């Protein structure tokens, strides 16, 4: 367990009577791909704006890479990269000119810039779009450009605020691959999103509702704790039906429906479960595995939070 690179303690923000963020605590280790979820009005955007220093918290501490953000906001700027909901590219300039502009502000120029940009451009597949005016760029390229700009100066922390909003489903997957690459290279990535399925790309998931942190754990843990687990539809060949059923039950699968097609449930798919499924497949069964829907999980979480608030 290494020292957290992002630490928030008791983070609170009030607007008059309304509490947007309520005593939030976070500790994120370096290299984590951290998903921060919440609906509209949950306090998600307020939180990220406080973390990067665009908004002053009413109470609480924030520490990024060992630096107290409230006391020395400017010191962190070199170490963080940000991509907002509206990708901030300047109209009237080409992508290359935008890159030169932002890089210049970070002191990245000349040969070093050429090298660095060469790398990033390659990774993000932006070579063709480099000399286009930003107004002419399609949405997918624009998103990748935003990510490129955010990582250009080699920050240790990346903050991405709903980076895939407005991107079509196919491009989203590709985009997440880029994000995961960053995390693999040791960058800590803090992502907000409201696409629930995207949590599966991440190492950790936190969920905020009505200003409070409701859960902060791994996606698997989330599924294990809050869902009915995986749903498996198995259609074994009639002559092996009984044997298949027995094998699966032995491995801990709960049977929901019996018949020519079996409906089974299991909280997690561990080694034993996977072995059992392999066996069933080898016996000729048709298998269909579905992970628990995140939707259902979050609905439960929201309901739980609401009743917890009422009780308080």
């Amino acid at each position: 367990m290494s020292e957290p690179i992002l630490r928030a303690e008791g983070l609170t923000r009030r607007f008059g009577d309304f509490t947007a963020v309520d005593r939030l605590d976070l500790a994120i280790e370096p290299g984590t791909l951290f998903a921060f979820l919440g609906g509209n009005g949950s306090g998600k955007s307020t939180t990220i704006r406080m973390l990067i220093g665009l908004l002053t918290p009413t109470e609480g501490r924030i520490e990024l890479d060992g630096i107290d953000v409230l006391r020395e906001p400017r010191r962190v700027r070199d170490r963080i990269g940000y991509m907002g909901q509206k990708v901030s590219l300047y109209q009237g300039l080409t992508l290359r000119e935008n890159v030169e502009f932002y890089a210049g502000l970070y002191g990245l120029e000349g040969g070093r810039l050429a090298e660095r940009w060469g790398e990033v451009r390659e990774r993000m597949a932006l070579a063709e779009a480099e000399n286009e005016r930003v107004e002419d760029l399609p949405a997918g390229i624009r998103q990748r450009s935003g990510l490129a700009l955010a990582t250009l100066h080699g920050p240790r922390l990346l903050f991405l605020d709903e980076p895939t909003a407005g991107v079509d489903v196919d491009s989203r997957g590709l985009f997440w691959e880029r994000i995961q690459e960053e995390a693999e290279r040791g960058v800590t990535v803090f992502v907000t999103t409201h696409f629930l399925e995207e949590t599966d790309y991440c190492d950790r998931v936190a969920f905020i509702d009505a200003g409070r942190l409701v859960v902060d754990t791994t996606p698997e843990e989330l599924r294990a704790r809050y869902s009915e687990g995986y749903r498996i539809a198995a259609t074994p060949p009639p002559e092996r039906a009984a044997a298949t059923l027995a094998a699966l039950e032995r491995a801990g699968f709960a049977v929901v429906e019996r018949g020519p097609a079996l409906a089974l449930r299991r909280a997690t798919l561990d080694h034993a479960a996977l072995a059992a499924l392999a066996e069933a497949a080898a016996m000729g069964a048709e298998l269909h595995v579905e992970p628990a829907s995140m939707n259902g999980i979050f609905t439960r979480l929201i309901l739980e939070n609401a009743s917890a608030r009422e009780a308080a």
Partner: protein
Amino acid sequence: MSARRLLTLLRREVRATLRDPFTVAVLILVPLVALLSFSFVLSTEVEDLSLGVLDASGSYESRRIVAELEADGSFVPRPYATRAELEAALVSGEISAAIVFPPDFQRALLARAPGQPPPEVQLLYDGAETVLAGNAEGFLQGLINAAGAELVGPEAARGGVVVEMRALFNETLDGTPFMVAGTFGFVLSFLTTLITAVAIVNEKIGGTFDQLQLTPATNLEIFLGKLLPLGGMFAFDVVLMMFASGFVLGVWPRGNALFFVAVSSFYVMTSLALGLFFSATSATAAEAVQKTVFASIPLVQLSGFAFPIRNMPMAIQWLTEVLPATHYIRISRAIYLRGAGPLDLLPELGALTVFAVLLVGGSLRSLARRP
């Protein structure tokens, strides 16, 4: 404060602006159009004014007078037969002034017994058009008296005290240089504030503002990076307008041109800061514009640009001293029309400096304040 970062910011701003044809057009055309249209509005002249004539005497003398009025070019006489028709013409706006000769005009004029009053000539003016009527009155009176002196001889026409009048700086009392100097004030107050407000609001909406704040660039650098290019462009406008008014209108500053450009550029910073204020509190460009326009209307009107401050009630005159535009327009007119130099204008320059410090300081603070 890093010169390198500032340069980066400046380069981007200038590049993006120069590539936007609309902005370039606005920056060049608007000051020129304003200059050319405003310079013509103030006039003490009268030309081709419809003058209704009700001549009950039908005498040679009365006709001669009317002929002289027509010959002068200021008035276009139109005869009417009855008083009622004359009055109707005034109401409908067909005529702007009228002259009425009594039936016994000739006799009263030429065969006047000593002690008898001279003939009464009525002059009616369309008071609905105040400036026109005011100008017309001056001209008409002068022309008629001159015509009268010719008819009855200078002896009989003499009376009162004769005034020898001369105007310093502007013999013909031509309104053009006055308005040209004032137009600088108008453009540099209104246009600059408006453009700045819109530019900054657009940046805020675009999200680039947030991104900028997260870079190592300091607030001062961001501020200057936005304002210096704008200031530069407006300074260019000052020079452009100066040459335009010189070559097209024949109006050059009587004083030092470099001094004028320097002071104007300084004033531009003040207007820019004001624009920043308006944009800081607006969420959309439309809102920023409405605020700017709403505030600018009284600002411009009270600054002495078109209507003299001296004519205003004393309480309002004190109020106008609080507007930076007032002081700039005074300076502008002093340099253009009176040839004043820096020493003559110390109090005004001082006032302008105070405003600049307050506004620029205030807007820096508003920029620095994190919400």
